């Protein structure tokens, strides 16, 4: 049934071939003696056009192309967690793989998993239903599902025990009377979303452990967020911080057209770190898909679909999955490059006209769902964007903006002062924030919304006053406005700045965030009251505990919330009677104890 063709033209990652027999659009093909993987993207009479996912050096006219009869698919299974894969989910690694050669077979071989059946012969199996559990080594327990495109009466199921992941697991007879079988390892076409029972509305945030995101611009569990930023603004560092700290069950980390050394960094760091939720090594909840910038460009285009298909695979087991894509701009550029080679008419910025719909297809696969087996699962998508010249009006940024509900803009000025995360509070937004009041109330912070509004207003006011100060000078502002500037400065330093590399401050729990917010609000009240009673601004700025406030994220950890109480008492003590002193704290140079 597989069709054949002969190459008549090659250019970079794309080729044209004259075919005998029928190829289908989006059919996977195998090219040449090395069996390079490719995909049919256009059919014109006797000719097909295809993109090839590996280096095409050495291909020439006359070389054979074979069809597979199947759409481009990847293999999913219980052995995915903790692994590292290329853009088509083939394992990267094994012996003698210092360099990636085209056509090198990274056969996955068998992986043995401990299987525990949950069904027996005679049971009616529905699509997507749980048929058992599997565990690889000491990894987490995973569910094994009936493939979403199969259903029927169970005829046979493998006994409990160790089993190869590609061995027959279940035989069933479908409604049409034909027998089918499946294994733990299953194939799924990457461009087809896996089916669900229904989509559910967002209700809770994905807790990221990053203060500026959780408190000011939260993303929903099953939501979509984008991080645009020019080079050097900290997109990758922020994404990695999210991968380390966010409260998801599974992280899919996609390095799409980015640096090899970054992947090396993740690989070195993640096995060492602990998952804050399960206590297991962080690597055991992580799947890394890497197509570095010098790897074949067409595979970069496919990698984003592979990654989201993996995310859906775990979602269907009833898990919350977060997918970090770094960077969607590189994916869009791969799309542009392949499109250009086919001679398609370019649209805005040279990108093909279908860029917007492809972006929409991708982001639409984020959701909070009821799975076919009745469980709740979610896929949250977080995509970095690398706009050329840091220009946010370019097509990828502007189209993405229409599909995401949280937008975290990274600011060059902040990054240059090494103020990380460099998320600009006035250029970022979250459309879902108001839905999460109940969540925060459940965390014991029913004042979260009011505090959030207060601090957002403070930042807005700061920007206005700074514009004014630039004209008339800061000293010419009335004391109340100068105090606002001081408050905003401390809020930025104490709350919005958070080091991704500090052992204490890497992750901030919602409880700690709320404690910090309250303490800052308390200090603002005290300072405003003291000013009203006649304290000078110099005295207010010289209160020694301001330094402790600014450094509290670094000093007081998630498990030491009573530390904020102690600091509050100190702040209160240092503000009492401030107005009565003739001159408060003439030397600002004394270090706080």
């Amino acid at each position, binding site marked *: 049934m597989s069709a054949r063709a002969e190459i008549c*033209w090659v250019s970079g990652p794309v080729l*044209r071939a004259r075919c005998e027999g029928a190829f289908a659009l989006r059919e996977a093909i195998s090219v040449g003696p090395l069996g390079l993987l490719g995909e049919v993207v256009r059919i014109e009479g006797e000719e097909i056009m295809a993109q090839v996912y590996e280096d095409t050096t*050495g291909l020439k006219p006359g070389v054979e192309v074979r069809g597979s009869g199947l759409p481009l698919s990847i293999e999913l299974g219980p052995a995915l967690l903790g692994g590292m894969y290329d853009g088509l989910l083939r394992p990267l690694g094994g012996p003698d793989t210092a360099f990636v050669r085209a056509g090198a077979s990274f056969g996955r071989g068998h992986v043995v998993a401990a299987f525990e059946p949950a069904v027996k012969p005679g049971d009616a199996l529905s699509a997507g239903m749980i048929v058992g559990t599997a565990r690889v080594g000491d990894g987490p327990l995973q569910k094994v599902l009936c493939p979403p495109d199969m259903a029927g009466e169970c005829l046979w199921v493998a006994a409990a025990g160790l089993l190869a992941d590609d061995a027959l697991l279940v035989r069933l007879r479908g409604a049409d009377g034909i027998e089918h079988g499946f294994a733990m390892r299953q194939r799924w076409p990457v461009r087809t979303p896996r089916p669900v029972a229904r989509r559910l509305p967002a209700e809770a945030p994905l807790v990221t452990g990053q203060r500026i995101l959780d408190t000011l611009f939260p993303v929903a569990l099953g939501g979509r967020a984008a991080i645009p930023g020019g080079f050097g603004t900290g997109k990758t560092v922020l994404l990695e911080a999210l991968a380390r700290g966010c409260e998801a069950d599974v992280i899919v980390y996609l390095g799409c057209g980015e640096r*090899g*050394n970054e*992947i090396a960094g993740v690989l070195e760091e993640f096995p060492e770190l602990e998952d804050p939720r399960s206590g297991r090594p962080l690597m055991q909840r992580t799947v890394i898909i890497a197509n570095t910038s010098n790897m074949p460009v067409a595979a970069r285009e496919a990698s984003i679909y592979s990654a989201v298909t993996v995310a859906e695979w775990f979602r269907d087991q009833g898990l919350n999955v977060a997918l970090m894509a770094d960077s969607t701009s590189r994916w869009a550029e791969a799309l542009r490059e392949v499109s*250009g080679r086919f001679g398609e008419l370019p649209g805005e910025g040279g990108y093909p006209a279908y860029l917007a719909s492809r972006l929409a297809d991708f982001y639409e696969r984020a959701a909070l769902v009821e799975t076919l087996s009745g469980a709740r699962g979610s896929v949250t998508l977080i995509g970095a964007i690398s706009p050329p010249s840091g220009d946010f009006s370019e097509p990828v940024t502007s189209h993405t903006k229409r599909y995401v509900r949280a937008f975290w803009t990274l600011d060059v000025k902040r990054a240059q*002062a090494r103020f990380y995360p460099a998320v600009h509070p006035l250029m970022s937004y979250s459309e879902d924030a108001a839905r999460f009041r109940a969540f925060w109330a459940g965390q014991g912070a029913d004042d979260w919304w009011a505090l959030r509004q207060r601090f957002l207003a403070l930042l807005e006011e700061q920007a206005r006053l700074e514009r004014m100060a630039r004209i008339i000078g800061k000293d010419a502002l009335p004391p109340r406005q100068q105090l606002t500037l001081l408050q905003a400065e401390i809020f930025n330093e104490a709350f919005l700045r958070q080091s991704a590399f500090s052992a204490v401050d890497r992750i901030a729990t919602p409880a700690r965030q709320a404690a910090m917010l309250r303490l800052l609000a308390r200090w603002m009240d005290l300072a405003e009251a003291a000013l009203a009673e006649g304290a000078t601004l110099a005295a207010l700025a010289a209160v020694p505990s301001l330094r402790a406030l600014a450094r509290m994220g670094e000093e007081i950890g998630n498990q030491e919330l009573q530390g904020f109480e102690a600091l509050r008492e100190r702040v209160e003590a240092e503000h009492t009677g401030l107005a009565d002193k003739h001159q408060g704290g003439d030397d600002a140079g004394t270090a706080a104890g």
Partner: protein
Amino acid sequence: MRAPLLVEHAATKLDGPLLFLKRTVEAALGDAVEVRGRDGHARLGRIVALDDQALTIEVLESSAGLDLPSTVVRFRGEPLSFALGPGILGRVFNGVGQVIDGGPPIAASEHRAIDGLPMNPVARALPRDFIETGVSAIDVMNSLVRGQKLPIFSGGGLPHDRLAIDVARHARLRGAGGDFAIVFCGIGLPYDSAEAFRSALEASGALERTALFLNLASDSSTQRLLTPRYALTAAEYLAFVEGKHVLAILTDMTNYCEALREVSSSKGEMPSRKGFPGYLYSDLATLYERAGCLRGHPGTLTQLSILTMPADDIAHPIPDLTGYITEGQIVLSRELDRRGVRPPVAVLPSLSRLAKDGTGGKYTHPDHPALASQLYAAYARAVQTRVLASVVGEDGLAEADRRYLAFGRRFEQDFVHQDGPRTLEESMDAGWRLLAELPRNELTRLSDAQIAAHLA
């Protein structure tokens, strides 16, 4: 059909560096060829496009003097490769890997394809070994580590050459020595700059540890596309076969990109930003990503490439795309240069992404990262205050702001500017001295213990 080695009377069109042939042989994309014209001179070329009727050859030397009837093409049947062996150090090559110093040819122990292969990200080791360059603005603020690719973003007339030479001359690993080599790759370089590099390396005695690859401004632009590939192939050989610590200096990447644009447009490809081809990012990545460390290999490959920003514009596609690929950038400033700051490193837009992995307790000094962060915060505030002062005047500023202004001036004059190389300790001391002049209460990036230890 057996492939004849030589093809005559097949040329159909000549267009700049491109030669179009009727396809009468079985040749593959990327294969190397030799093109011989009426003058008998053999020019290197490679196949850049082919279909079942025609093939396109990119001639890598001047195509002047070629004609259609008498051009003979010899097919090598394999991609361009570089014959490498022990003894390439101390030698000078042209842009396509041919010896031009009058010495004997290289005794080759292996042939490596010049395009290289992508390093498997799983096989990479994270670069961690701090390199002391002797430059404070790099060592303290934007530390360089072995296996990193850190470009210098410069402008015409700025002393980037001198900075690169200083780094090449002083770069050392703290503690252990290791076998060190330099690969210098001049792309479209004027003769005098190339000569200045050569004599500076010679004067410092580094020349015998250096392999020079020179594509001069007068050489053909197609060749410019290959020069860094030959040089990096040699660098990979030195690093991963001979086990040396290689510093590859590539200058000037802007010339490379210009050549890429020129060749792309003569191929009739769809232009993208500023006329550069849409694949400029992927193409640059195939060069820059050839840096790093491999697990189980003693050698490392560090890249220091220099590019001159057209019109000093950091948003221009060349620096922009480079910055997205490399692990940071060192930016030189014309304003600092005019004020006599040497080296004129603009600290704020500069960045080393790998500094976090190679600094701190185990690698340099436990307080190094905090010092760098605090200097950044204070200098950023100084620069911000400077903008304010330019409108309202220095007298309109508050006392605290005036202190920051003074800090900013001293930071540039006493820390960034240096008359000779400094050790890391000397650089850090200079940094602490500057911070000592700021109010302790505002040094929020330092812990109380750090303040007590260094600013008491």
